[in-house]
């Protein structure tokens, strides 16, 4: 399939677990909805549930819908009946589509409703926004295999993840990477001697391993600080660990931020110490800001974004000694930081919004052949 040519104008339905929560997939849906709308498509963003504390979406250039005002009934007979009922609402929404309409199901849980709706005449695309390994370790694995078996295309984030799903028997799998959310005009000046980490303070993000790593680095680099952005359920535990490791002097807990570019302007190196990832946005944002990264190579998405030694550095997952070694390289060598930061900024353009939307439109056309 070849991109480039402008696609016909389509009705595109983006169906997620929720349209107004903070998670990565929801932000992705709204980002794509905006991009598709800019191309002249008619976009509908649909959520299954409504969270108790909905995130304010502000003014949107496309309509949204929610199947439930709160949560659906607990699994069982009541849930089944309500699912059939709400699926008819989906059917009504879908029926209004012009020929060439597309349903994009961003999370497998939402597929349980979509599969009950009538999608005749529409192209149905199912997505998994995490690495194969992460799915494999969760209950989503079986559900992806079951509910996405008959969709027109199942999409993951990298070729490598797609190959793993195919080998597992999902022969309709392909991939499209995520788009970088923005490409700023002014990069980080990389003047402040800080290592930045941005992410939820949860087990999956591995901040405990970053602190272990930092305990090897801090004595060697007394003039550097580690700035940890984010909040979450593990904050207290992590702060205790930090104190126990004697790192309070060099670690700064920055809390949650809505100004990611601003945060990145306050540092010269970015660290990613996650246990699992999909196609990490934080990494793309740092690279877009020309901040060189050192990361655990914990998912195909990570080595898809970072070419080790060219535009960033990779360490084997969990090997804190090695991650410390990579960070040390960047912290000790300004020339290397500048070189890798600029290369990163250049390289990350391949995930620019234009390129990615072209790929989506080409896929819509291809699936009609």
């Amino acid at each position, binding site marked *: *399939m070849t991109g480039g040519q402008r696609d016909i104008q389509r009705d595109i339905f983006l169906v997620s677990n929720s349209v107004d929560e903070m998670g990565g997939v929801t932000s992705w849906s709204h980002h794509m909805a905006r991009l598709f709308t800019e191309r002249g498509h008619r976009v509908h963003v649909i959520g299954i549930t409504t969270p108790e504390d909905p995130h304010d979406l502000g003014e949107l250039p496309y309509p949204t819908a929610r199947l439930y005002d709160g949560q659906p009934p607990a699994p069982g007979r009541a849930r089944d009946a309500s699912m059939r009922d709400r699926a008819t609402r989906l059917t009504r929404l879908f029926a209004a589509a012009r020929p060439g309409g597309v349903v994009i199901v961003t999370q497998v849980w939402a597929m349980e409703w979509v599969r009950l709706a009538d999608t005749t005449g529409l192209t149905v695309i199912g997505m998994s926004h995490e690495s194969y390994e992460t799915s494999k370790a969760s209950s989503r694995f079986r559900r992806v295999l079951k509910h996405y078996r008959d969709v027109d295309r199942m999409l993951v984030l990298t070729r490598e993840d797609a190959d793993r799903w195919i*080998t597992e028997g999902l022969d309709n799998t392909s991939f499209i990477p995520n788009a970088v959310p923005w490409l700023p005009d002014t990069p980080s000046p990389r003047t402040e001697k800080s290592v930045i980490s941005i992410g939820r303070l949860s087990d999956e993000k591995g901040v405990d391993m970053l602190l272990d790593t930092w305990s090897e680095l801090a004595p060697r680099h007394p003039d550097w600080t580690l700035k940890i952005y984010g909040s979450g359920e593990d904050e207290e535990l992590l702060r205790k660990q930090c104190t126990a490791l004697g790192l309070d002097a060099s670690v700064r807990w920055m809390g949650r931020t809505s100004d990611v570019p601003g945060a990145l302007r306050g540092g010269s190196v970015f660290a990613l110490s996650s246990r699992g990832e999909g196609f990490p946005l934080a990494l793309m944002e740092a690279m877009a800001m020309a901040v060189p990264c050192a990361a655990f190579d914990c998912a195909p998405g990570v080595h898809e974004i970072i070419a080790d030694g060219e535009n960033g550095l990779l360490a084997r997952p969990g090997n804190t000694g090695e991650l410390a070694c990579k960070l040390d390289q960047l912290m000790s060598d300004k020339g290397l930081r500048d070189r890798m930061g600029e290369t990163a900024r250049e390289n990350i353009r391949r995930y620019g919004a234009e390129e990615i939307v072209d790929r989506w439109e080409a896929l819509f056309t291809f699936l009609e052949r």
Partner: protein
Amino acid sequence: MNRTNGVNVGVDQRPAMSVVVIVYNDEARLPTAVRSVLEQTLRSVEVVIVDDHSTDGSYETARRLAAEHPDRVRAYRLPENSGGCGAPRNHGIRETRGEYVLFLDSDDVLERNACRNMLEAAETTGADLVSGLCVRVHVDTRTRKEVKWYPWLYARTRTLDSISELPDLLVYDTLSTNKCYRRDFLVEGGLEFPVGIHYEDLFFSAQAYAAARRITLIPNRVYDWNVTESAAAKSISNRRAEIANFAHRMEIHRRVDRLLADRDMGALKFHKDVKFLKHDLVLHLRDLPFRDAAYRQEFAALARAYLTSIDPAAYDEVEPIHAICAYLLRESDWANLLPAVDTLTNRDKVSAPLVERDGRIYWCDAGHLTDPFARRILDVTELGYHSRSVEKLFLRNELTEYRQEDGGGVVRLAGRVTNPLGVIPPAARLTAELEFYARRPGVRFRTFRVPVPEVRHGGAYVNWQATANVSKTLRPLGIVDAVWDVRLHLDVDGKRTTSRLTAAEPDLATGELPVRPRLTRLVADRVAPQISARGHLAFRLVPDKKANVLVTRGLRGTPGRLAKSGYRKAKALRKRATSGDTKIRLYHEVFLRMPVHKRLVVFESHLGRQYSDSPRAIYEEMRRQGLDFEAVWSYSGKPDGFPSDATLVRRWSLPYLRALARAEFWIDNQSYPLKLTKRPGTAYLQTWHGSALKRMGFDEPGWKLKSRAEQAEQQRTLDRFDHFLIRSEHDVHTLAKAFRLSEKTLLRVGYPRNDELVQARGATERPPLAAELGIPANKKILLYAPTFRHHGQRRFSLPFDVERFAETFGDEYVLLVRAHYLNHVVLPPSVRGRVIDVSAHHDVTPVLALADALITDYSSVMFDYALLDRPMLFFTYDYEEYVHEGRGTYFDLLERAPGPVVRTEDELHALLTASTLEEQSVKYASARERFVADFGEYDKGTAARRIVDEFFSEWRRK
């Protein structure tokens, strides 16, 4: 979903794909094949059916399909039958209009997404050829068994700019059907199937691979190759066909070789040669024992002609037995080839008498060994046959006579058991018996034994003769025991070696014998000998009575199905009852509720593999002091070498679990099963098995990476330790921290296993082990003890030439080799007496105490051996790989090694040549002292006694 609003392929619109479906006399299955194309998720596909002039209704069926789908299906018929796949496919290519072409046989089907996936790959990469995974579906089996066709080639998506990047693709995946070809690529390149010869796919695929400018492989399943087992017996005419097929195969191979040579791809021929030796040839060699002399000669002539073109270097790339068979076939040495084929079929069998020449072991001599090439091929020293005792050998037992006496139920059997390297000594006391047993896996064994009155030693063979009254002996239970296998137990001075009876010639064993089944004679009352696929003699009930037809119908019908599924359920139930989960439940719900058994101690070392290390040292000290207690030792595998004055229990057995649940003490150096919780009334004394160089526990990446819940689970198993032995503060900073142990569990007493070493320090007399190993007093003893290494499939091999070592230093030193207990080492006979494998000794400590110097790399024995204050050499040939690519180390060995570090074999030789052990000892004396202070400060030679004082003083008899 998007299935109904498809854009139909108009007459004037070129389809993306054309699928050429060929058919010959297969009207029943053709519609299924065609439907699998029409129902593709990609709609822009056309079908071109080519009928090879069938005599059934295939062409009519094809025309009907074309009429039903006029836009998408066309049907053609060849004017006369071509007898192959080549002509119809060539015709099909000419009739296609799509941008890409695929081939499908009328009995197979395409996966639903095959065309879409191949098209996506082709358009994304611009490949001339896209190939996907083919799956062989055994449609006759109950579960429709599926076998993937060379899946390792299709593990991931990859694009090749030339087949030279992946020779295995050309060599192994020789199918034409799991691929899609750009039509212009076929037409402009003039690529066609050869006609009038079998194996046309081999040539076509090789040709396409060689011509393609780009090839993309996709992991997607694209093609289902439906396989039906043909039960047709192989008749003489089939034999003729077999030879003709083989001739065709050789001709195709020659054509492919020419093609590669013409295209300047000669290097690929080497890979083809390797596969020929280990695959193509083997398929035919395995049949040889079942074929008569005329067939063998014809086959050999054809194969020999081709073998001359095989690169001699290819022989080095295959397993020894493959090379040996090819070589013996080339040399027409039938007397040695047929036994070799037996080993080819039964890999663990030793089928040749073997010869020893100049310290090496060879498969056979027969005049071959004057040729250096033959010596290389026939050298089987590395297989270690010479280091195995008779009860560990599976020997070839050739049936030389089978005679039915007077047409009755009595059979005279004679045979000869191979005696490799005289492993059965001439003076050995020999007795033997034949055993008949019903082939019924998983159910109660029914066996009958017949004495073998005559067993004679005959040098390279042991000959035997017996008369078996089969009619009286074999009492099948009606039709249940349909097949009976036979084996010979040969006792050599009380050691038993068991062999199967191999019929080396076809038609040696024939004729039917009357038997009396126990339940009913209605079904069968005769057995006939038969030879199994592995070449072994068996007997099968002859089912030709009328009643049997009824019974058979019953077996295949509903009653049989019910009986069989009941049997399967019973088997599954038994498996569940003995599963680990059930045992763990039993442990917690029954055994743990029984009272603690006072003074019961369960010992274990290295997961039950050995009677060794600190648990042994503590146990022996407790015995020495005559304590009043009950000892249980755990073992895995065989209990040989474990103490006779303790109760021995197999690891994971019910007695083992009961003992652990009730014990007052657990004493172990690694870990008891992780899933077993320890009750508070039991004290766990964890001795551990060595100080750490490499990162351990929660300092290892693998542990760090675990989720919080998994880490907590792991911690629970570590928190079972009530006491943990410590040799130095280094252990506190590494092991204790890595296992997150609390200070109160740490016992700073040193290792009981090392008491012996501390006491041996400065000893002047050699321990008795020297005499046991036959080491002369005038030679110094070096010990080579490397750490564990992962080798995947490959055998562990020493990182230096052991023969060269023995040659150079054999007059001065005896080298002991101690491989890690998970690795296995083979020494050639040439180094006998100069290099000794001591890996099988349970305990390493006496070996350490014996050695005058140690050569190691990163093994933790360095920390223990240092206590002896004797020279140590560090042979770290793979330091970078081991230290940096592994999980990391706690300190830099190169900085702190208490002895010289060498990186290559030559450096090792140079070091041993340049200086004596005494000089080494003096030079590094202070470094060793520092090393002991850093890593063994608490090893004072009294650890075992202090532990007894601390925990068991109450148990002293008053």
